[in-house]
């Protein structure tokens, strides 16, 4: 064969991966589906479970799941971007819905009235596939309109919620644990959100003087940032613990403090710790935002006769607003996660379920605490991203 046709042959054989992300997602998903446990069946809440892989399920369920995985894999090779995105979305969303329904149905199938203590938990394959499905959906929504970017995930979340509400997932251990906690779940969730909201509010108030000092007084800046950086390195449990003693003192000495709930335990030390941790992201981004206002804009404002205060409110602040919101976003998401530790010092919140679950070695109970925390964090993040996008598209 001549060299020309050899080169042609090689070129024809070379397979071109159009979407590396989809490819990178599909491979571990398929591996997980084959080797990892999709469900785990345990004789009781404490004992270890026997794993059940995806291919060990009913024929129809396996076929659908594997079919969707193959679809996902195939999507990686489609060159046309629109078709690829559509296929990717269908595969990802389909996978999410399919594994939910399959898990629920199979769990029902494995219930045994002779063994009421039997627990059916979601295995690592389930979690890997749901992660892959979500990421595939996210990837497919990269180049769509803004409304689609918001509506599509909402629609998926609504579908998942509908499936859960319909009772299809009631046989799973996770649902049973949630049911056992339903009396206090709403109040703990509210308490968690309240802790974070109050802490962020206080942190914003504290951040104002700190930012102004950092931006407009050079000698204060180094001290402020060194202190905040140092604070950030203190492990959260240690900080929560350290605050108990001085606040007990305060609560004991000042009757008013006790009346409004400041004692050594409960919300007060939790909120103070959360505020301290939130300060660094807030002050750092506000400082960066205010310092990055273009010098010529400020000079022209000054030259046109704006007082320093007018320059701050009409020029600096509006131009620094995206940075401020960005810092707020980081601080909020961080606080939602940190507030889980608050349960250890009697402040309540979603951490209650986490520590209860750890204590009783009931990992599904831990999930009753962690999954809502993750959902809260993701929602807050998305909300801030929407706000930021609207801010940026105005000019």
């Amino acid at each position, binding site marked *: 064969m001549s060299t020309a046709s050899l080169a042609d042959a090689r070129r024809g054989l070379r397979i071109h991966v159009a979407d590396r992300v989809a490819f990178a997602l599909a491979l571990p998903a398929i591996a997980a589906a084959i080797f990892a446990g999709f469900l785990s069946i345990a004789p009781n809440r404490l004992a270890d479970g026997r794993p059940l892989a995806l291919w060990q399920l009913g024929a129809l369920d396996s076929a659908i799941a594997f079919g969707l995985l193959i679809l996902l894999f195939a999507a990686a090779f489609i060159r046309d971007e629109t078709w690829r995105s559509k296929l990717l979305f269908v595969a990802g969303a389909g996978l999410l819905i399919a594994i939910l329904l399959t898990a629920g149905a199979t769990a029902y199938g494995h219930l045994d009235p002779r063994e009421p203590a039997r627990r059916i938990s979601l295995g690592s394959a389930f979690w890997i596939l749901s992660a892959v499905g979500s990421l595939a959906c996210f990837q497919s929504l990269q180049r769509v309109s803004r409304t689609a970017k918001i509506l599509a995930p909402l629609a998926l979340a609504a579908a998942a919620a509908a499936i859960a509400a319909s009772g299809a997932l009631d046989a799973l251990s996770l649902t049973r644990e949630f049911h056992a906690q339903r009396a206090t779940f709403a109040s703990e969730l509210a308490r968690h959100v309240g802790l974070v909201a109050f802490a962020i509010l206080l942190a914003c108030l504290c951040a104002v003087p700190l930012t102004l000092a950092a931006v407009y007084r050079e000698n204060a800046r180094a001290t402020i940032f060194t202190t905040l950086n140092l604070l950030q390195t203190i492990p959260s449990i240690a900080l929560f613990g350290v605050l108990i003693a001085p606040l007990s003192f305060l609560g004991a000495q000042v009757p008013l403090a006790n009346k409004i709930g400041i004692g050594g335990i409960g919300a007060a030390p939790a909120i103070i710790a959360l505020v301290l941790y939130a300060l660094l992201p807030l002050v750092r981004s506000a400082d960066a935002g205010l310092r990055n206002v*273009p010098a*010529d*804009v400020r*000079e*022209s*404002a*000054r*030259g*046109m*006769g*704006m*007082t320093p205060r*007018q320059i701050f409110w009409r*020029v600096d602040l*509006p*131009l620094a607003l995206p940075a401020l919101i960005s810092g707020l976003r980081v601080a909020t998401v961080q606080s939602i996660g940190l507030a889980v530790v608050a349960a250890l010092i009697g402040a309540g919140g979603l951490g209650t379920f986490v520590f209860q679950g750890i204590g009783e070695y009931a990992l599904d109970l831990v999930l009753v605490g962690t999954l809502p925390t993750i959902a809260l964090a993701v929602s807050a993040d998305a909300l801030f991203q929407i706000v930021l996008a609207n801010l940026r598209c*105005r*000019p």
Partner: protein
Amino acid sequence: MIDFDAVEKHYAGQRVLGPLSLSIPQGALCVLVGPSGCGKSTTLKMINALIAPDAGTIRVRGRAVGDFSPEELRRGIGYVIQSGGLFPHWRVRDNIATVPRLLRWDETRIAARVNELADIAEIDPTLLDRFPHQLSGGQQQRIGVARALAADPDLILMDEPFGALDPVTRAALQQELSRLHRDTGKTIVLVTHDMDEALALGTMIVVMRKGEIAQSSTPADILAHPSNDFVRDFVGGADATIKLLEFRRVGDVVRQDAETPAFAVPENATLRAALTKMMETGTTILNVRNDEGKILGIVRIEDIVSASKQS
């Protein structure tokens, strides 16, 4: 209008400007020109109190600059900088309305003024609702000038306003500035490092060097009688003669003759334009006509050459 009296500026113990004494009359278009670091921007910024002098006084409209509150002073003086300094988060119309808003004009008056300025500065009205980053550099600078004119100040300061533009836009804006100056009679103080721009725009040119004034006079005078070698070199050395021709008009050297040249030149054209026309047409003699087209006389190349030698 503006008086500098033995003004000095120190930096890190060194005197970088002064002692500077200068008088800028009302209605002048005074250009501060010189190489980088000569102190021209510093001088400009002392007029609207952006920089405070370390010695001496500056008087604007007869009152010492220190007597005003800085904001009050600045709101009465238009200010244009090289990069425009437009507020990126405000639309064009809001940018233009900055000083009127600071002066608390009512909104109808502001809206009317914005439209008026769009006319004066030749800004396309559809651009008024756009944001600065959506416009070209030339359009932005035009808006910068409009913004400086918004509150109708009688003094405008410009710090290298056209430095960042391409030559075509720059030439167009220079012409417009000249026209504006002629039409409104405002006092304009402009800083530039480009001598040709200074010669084209200025009625009064202040050549500065190392914090001191090298020469302060009319463009023609500087071209014809540079006070030292630095000024002569800075003005363009050998080109000075040609540049001087910009400042004389054909009408000054027209005379009667029996000859009938083939081409004509307007009487208010500069001698340089006449020379250029001669070179283009390959002739050495041109008719001079007035605005109505009537022939007033002729101009010869010898007249142009002798005119350039005068004073």
